[in-house]
């Protein structure tokens, strides 16, 4: 009996050594990705328009397309991605422990996350803000009318903090009901437990389009009570990988600014514009500087499309979410999307 204990303890110790030494491996993320042949991408468990799996298990959405673009840039194949659905609490651990290579999961870029969680944000893929959704029948026109109201919230987000900040600033005495899962919080809100539901405005549009018994019975209030710049994040210990992901995002923006789309990218290769030539790898060695193929941006644009195409395909006016470009238009069209020059 005692001997069996001993063997058990030894086995446990051995297992711990093996598993820890596996986790401690970090270093060149790109090398590891090239070796295994795909990118492991952390996404949302299900948020229409951003990351959602269909009945065949095929993932689509704006966040998903970012991972696909990176895969196209690295491998020339947008489908060299495996997805890990993560909930709000798992997501950072999944990234920092090495389980995923990119966290592309409608995650807000904040100082605390950037500075103290072992991760870095590579850019902004969607400028969002926290809003409120209420039933039309409640005849509420502004979030400031929510005095004493019960508000449904999903935990594991900056949402609770923003809600409290907004209520404190406006003396609203809001009563939150906090749920762990998105599903239960939706059930409670549409069941009438809360007067309002709060999350990022894009999330509200997504939930209204997908889960409301009748989407027209609910309105999203005009106030945005916070800034929610959503973007992909990578581990802090690998600056090369960070740079690569960052520049794939810029390439998608640059393509939209220069009018390069998935449809015309082949013709654009013969463009006389040196900027376009450099971006598409016709001249220069931009891809090599990032440690990948020179056709990196060409592949990403050809297979996934430029940022504008990704936006319109997943969340734009022709989708159930019906989101306007707003802040997410290019800077030339009055938005905030500004790609750093590829040169």
């Amino acid at each position, binding site marked *: 009996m005692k001997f069996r204990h*001993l063997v058990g303890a030894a086995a446990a110790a051995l297992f711990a050594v093996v598993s820890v030494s596996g986790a401690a491996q970090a270093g060149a993320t790109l090398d590891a990705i090239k070796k295994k042949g795909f990118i492991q991408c952390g996404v949302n468990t299900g948020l229409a328009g951003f990351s959602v799996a269909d009945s065949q298990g095929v993932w689509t959405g704006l966040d998903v397309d970012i991972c696909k673009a990176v895969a196209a840039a690295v491998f020339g194949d947008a489908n060299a991605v495996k997805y890990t659905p993560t909930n709000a609490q798992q997501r950072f651990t999944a990234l920092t422990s090495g389980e995923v290579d990119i966290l592309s999961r409608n995650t807000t870029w904040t100082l605390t996350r950037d500075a103290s969680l072992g991760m870095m944000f590579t850019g902004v893929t969607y400028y969002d803000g926290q809003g409120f959704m209420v039933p039309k029948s409640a005849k509420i026109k502004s979030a400031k009318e929510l005095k004493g109201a019960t508000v449904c919230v999903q935990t594991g987000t900056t949402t609770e903090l923003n809600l409290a900040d907004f209520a404190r600033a406006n003396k609203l005495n809001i009563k939150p009901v906090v749920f762990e899962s998105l599903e239960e919080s939706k059930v409670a809100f549409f069941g009438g437990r809360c007067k309002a539901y709060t999350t990022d405005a894009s999330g509200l549009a997504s939930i209204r389009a997908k889960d409301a018994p009748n989407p027209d019975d609910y309105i999203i209030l005009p106030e945005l009570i916070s800034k929610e710049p959503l973007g992909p994040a990578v581990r802090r210990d690998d600056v090369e990988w960070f740079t690569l992901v960052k520049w794939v995002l810029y390439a998608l923006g640059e393509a939209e600014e220069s009018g390069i789309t998935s449809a015309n990218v082949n013709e654009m290769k013969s463009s006389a514009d040196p900027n376009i030539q450099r971006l598409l790898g016709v001249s220069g060695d931009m891809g090599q500087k990032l440690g990948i193929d020179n056709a990196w941006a060409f592949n990403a644009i050809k297979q996934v499309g430029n940022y504008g195409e990704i936006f319109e395909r997943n969340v734009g006016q022709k989708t159930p979410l019906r989101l306007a470009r707003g802040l997410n238009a290019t800077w030339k069209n009055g938005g905030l999307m500004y790609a750093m020059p590829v040169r």
Partner: protein
Amino acid sequence: MADQDRAIHVPPRPSPWNDPKIRAIIYQIVLIAGVVALGVFLVSNTLTNLEQRQIRTGYGFLDQEAGFFIGETLISYDAASSYGRAFLVGLLNTLKVSVIGVVLATILGTIIGIARLSQNWIVARLASAYVETLRNIPLLLQLFFWYAALTNLLPASDHAAEFGLNIFLSKEGLRYPWPVVEDAHIWALIALPFGIAGAVAFSRWARARQMKTGRQMPLLWPSLVIIVGVPLIVWLMGGAPSQFEIPEKTKFGHDGGAAVTPEFLALVLGLVTYTASFIAEIVRAGILAVSWGQSEAAAALGLRRGPTLRLVVLPQALRVIVPPMTSQFLNLTKNSSLAVAIGYPDLVSVANTTLNQTGQAIECISLIMAVYLTVSLSIAGAMNWYNRRIALVER
């Protein structure tokens, strides 16, 4: 003779390596060393890894401002309070559900357990059906069921059902008048333990008197009068303040007074009905463990049914009931952490929010574990003490 025999049969001392006693000690030492080494290895490895990944560690965050609201609190709390206080609020909410749940589950479980032994065919079958249904459906599903039922069936918060006496029931929960707290209330609360002590003293005196004279005293009613009466007198001496805070209609429902939220109701309902099905079986087993001959013997001595149950059957049944009951109480307390699924702000829910805002997963999880361990060990300790008290005293 015997001494001589033993002297002859004493075997020669084996070498230390073959001595089973010494070997056993060596095994123990090696095992402990292994466990300690494993612990040190894991902790230091975690710390190094966290440091390598530049993740903050330590419990310093507990003093920082929490910044989030909590839906229901037993102590004063607002968003400017610290994370530490938020944890305390969550802990008290957990304890509130556990204490109420344990009391109600014990009562309901005992009733159903006795009902299952009833001579009445329908009552016994109904009790069996209850036990078999409730204990075979996962608790989480039952909680979802109760919560969905409550949020969908109750009237909308701006059309609350009124039961008179200013009691309102709606999707916001049950809201009822509550006395405006004044000093007299607090003094009455302080007097309550004295009332209980008085009742205990009275029952001791009555027992001693019965031993001496053989005359019985009624126990239940005088005890209740003492327990309730002492705080009542204190309250009356304090001027009998009886002002109530009455729920007022607001734009979205009612405010003021006291309230029970649907989340709390659903959680208590789910925990109580689920745990009661297990307790019912324990009670039934306990009663069946006392042989029928005991009751017959009591009847032969001329004891009526009540005293037979109270003085003969129950004391023996409790010996069988209490140990498994302890684990049911522990289960109920630990199961209350499922509250997070239906929006009740218990310890786990608050810790989840804290974890997400600070990103300090290991610290938050370790706090949750430490709290549940402490609570569980306290319950187990109290029940073991009670178990020793009621254990059969062998003479």
